């Protein structure tokens, strides 16, 4: 086998890994859309906010220190502690739960029964708000996020596969971070499935997703379900924020990962958790393979952004509800 063949396999493997990273973001969208029919554009900003909060807790930064300094003329920045990663994650999670509570209380409650596009716009407004709020709270400079996940190519894999393709092949390259992301994503999905299948709250969640009114009539509190769902989505955002933030540092651009998740959603369907995973994998492999085979050699590269959307678009033309979406039945 020629080296090119193995490189193609390497590209596919890395595409799968990238797909997992996209799925992590897409999962949050699906959870909220299923439970409340809201297309939550703020998911990307939630990931940024969660990661900012995590770094802030870890480094013992004082929230709003910049604002306080500007208003009172003080010069405070740090509490002077370094929180262990695990503890900081728990604290960030608590913040995300509080956030879910506030979103329900101040936004969702007032927007019940509005059209989907209005709810969508409200989440964009929320995204703006949180962008400014996160910057105010923690500052706009770039932060290093380190919770102890190893980074860099997996050397063991690289050395043990180098024999496959002759002199021009240097072994498969896979990032350790991606491997860990895959493991975390798997744990996350499995626990989500267990949660929704075997717990009382989980069953209530599924009931709400199935039929709001029927769920209401059997005594399920819609509002508490929404808080729970947004809290879970906040947790997913935290995981996504940790993974993406370890890679690139925590800063504004982290919120743009939402754009990577949208084609995944289209492909997988807005309402399906397996769809988000499989859609992510298809998009990841598709865009990486296209870049490898056609994009870089013939089109000058940087095709990934639009190709993901084009792939999803093509797919939708044949299956308008996405891969696993609920079949659209239209009646007059």
């Amino acid at each position, binding site marked *: 086998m020629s080296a090119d063949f193995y490189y193609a396999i390497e590209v596919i493997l890395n595409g799968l890994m990238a797909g997992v990273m996209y799925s992590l973001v897409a999962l949050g969208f699906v959870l909220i859309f299923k439970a409340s029919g809201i*297309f939550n554009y703020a998911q990307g900003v939630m990931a940024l906010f969660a990661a900012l909060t995590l770094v802030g807790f870890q480094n013992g930064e004082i929230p709003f220190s*910049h*604002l306080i300094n*500007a208003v009172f003329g003080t010069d405070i920045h740090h509490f002077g502690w370094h929180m262990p990663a695990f503890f900081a994650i728990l604290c960030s999670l608590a913040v995300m739960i509080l956030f879910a509570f506030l979103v329900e209380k101040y*936004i969702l409650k*007032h*927007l019940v029964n*509005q*059209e*989907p*596009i*209005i709810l*969508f*716009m*409200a989440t*964009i*407004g*929320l*995204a*703006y*708000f*949180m*962008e*400014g*709020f996160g*910057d*105010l709270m923690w500052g*706009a400079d770039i932060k290093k996020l380190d919770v102890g996940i190893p980074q860099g190519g997996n050397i063991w894999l690289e050395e043990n596969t180098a024999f496959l393709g002759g002199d021009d092949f240097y072994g498969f390259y896979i990032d350790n971070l991606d491997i860990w992301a895959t493991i975390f994503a798997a744990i996350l999905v499995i626990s989500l499935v267990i949660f929704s299948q075997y717990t009382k709250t989980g069953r209530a969640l599924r009931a709400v997703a199935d039929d709001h009114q029927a769920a209401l009539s059997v005594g399920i509190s819609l509002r508490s379900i929404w808080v729970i769902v947004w809290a879970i989505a906040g947790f997913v955002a935290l995981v996504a924020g940790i993974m993406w933030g370890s890679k690139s540092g925590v800063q504004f651009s982290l919120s743009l990962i939402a*754009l990577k998740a*949208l*084609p995944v*959603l*289209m492909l997988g369907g*807005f309402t399906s958790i397996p769809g988000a995973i499989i859609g992510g994998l298809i998009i990841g492999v598709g865009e990486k393979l296209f870049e490898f085979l056609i994009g870089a050699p013939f*089109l*000058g590269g*940087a*095709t990934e*952004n*639009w190709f993901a*959307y*084009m792939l*999803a*678009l093509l797919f*939708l*033309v044949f299956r*308008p*509800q*996405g891969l696993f979406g609920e079949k*659209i039945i*239209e*009646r*007059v």
Partner: protein
Amino acid sequence: MLYREAGDFKTSYAKDQQTFPIAFDRWGYFITIAFAFLVVPFLINDYWVNAVVLPFLIYSIAAIGLNILTGYCGQVSLGTGGFMAVGAFSAYKLMTAFPELSMIIVILLSGGVTAFVGILFGLPSLRIKGFYLAVATLAAQFFLVWMFNKFPWFYNYSASGQISAPERSVFGFAVTGANVTPAVSYLFCLCFVFVLAWAARNLTRGANGRKWMAIRDMDIAAEIIGVDPLKTKLTAFGVSSFYIGIAGALLFAIYLGAAEVGEAFDISKSFLVLFMIIIGGLGSIFGSFAGAAFMVLMPVLLKNIMVGYLGWPTDLASHFQFVIVGGLIVIFLILEPHGFAQLWRLAKEKLRLWPFPH
């Protein structure tokens, strides 16, 4: 008292169906137009034109365009930025390839090219609906931006891919380039806004507009009563893109003077215009203007208050600006999900009865 229907008798169908059936409205409209055309050009200066008025006028056109597609025909689109880029680059190519061509024709042709591209990307709308369509239009957004960045032909093989508008004039007055006077660029855009808004208003209340609204309200039912969904949806995409293309061409040629596709026409443009029509009111021409005014004026106003008056550091001010704009959008959606247009309608209802509400 002043705002009333009583005593205003219509003696012909034409009069009965005019856009502003109430005399007070009609006069308000005429006075606004006269003010805009006859008074403003003498008052306006560089700052007002470039910081407030031009973006307001240009975004109004884009908002009307998107409102035709989303508000009247019910097809949510997030490709506005990409279509504006088509308009801008068509204008650039036409301006440099045919230096003698009048700017009016250049702008109209750019709209035409965009309409064509819009129809092309509108084709999937026959199969895809709702949010799926919204995300699908993002494909247009990303692909178009990539394309204009990728192929040097579009930017005349310049080293960096930036396009700059050369100086062109209409009736002897420079409208693009460095030597434009504020009044000229203002009037040039205002003419486009006036004609396009007038056309849009009449399109949307004619047969086409009623077909669009039928598709919006329920496409299957519309099909059953004989509305051709293919033709209707594609005309909506075409007309909407024509408007958006013109907005893009004006944005590049008159307002910015130089543009880079990835920066000036990125996805945040798409969201911005969508914001305008939702805050202004879906399915309303007046709403498009109100939304554009809100989204253009709000940040400038906040900046001037916080930095200019209160003397805050610029970074804090702009963080607050995000918080306030985001918060306002949410509050606004909670209080009045149907936008300024609905507020305006309610106000008119009240006025009609005032001062005897019972």
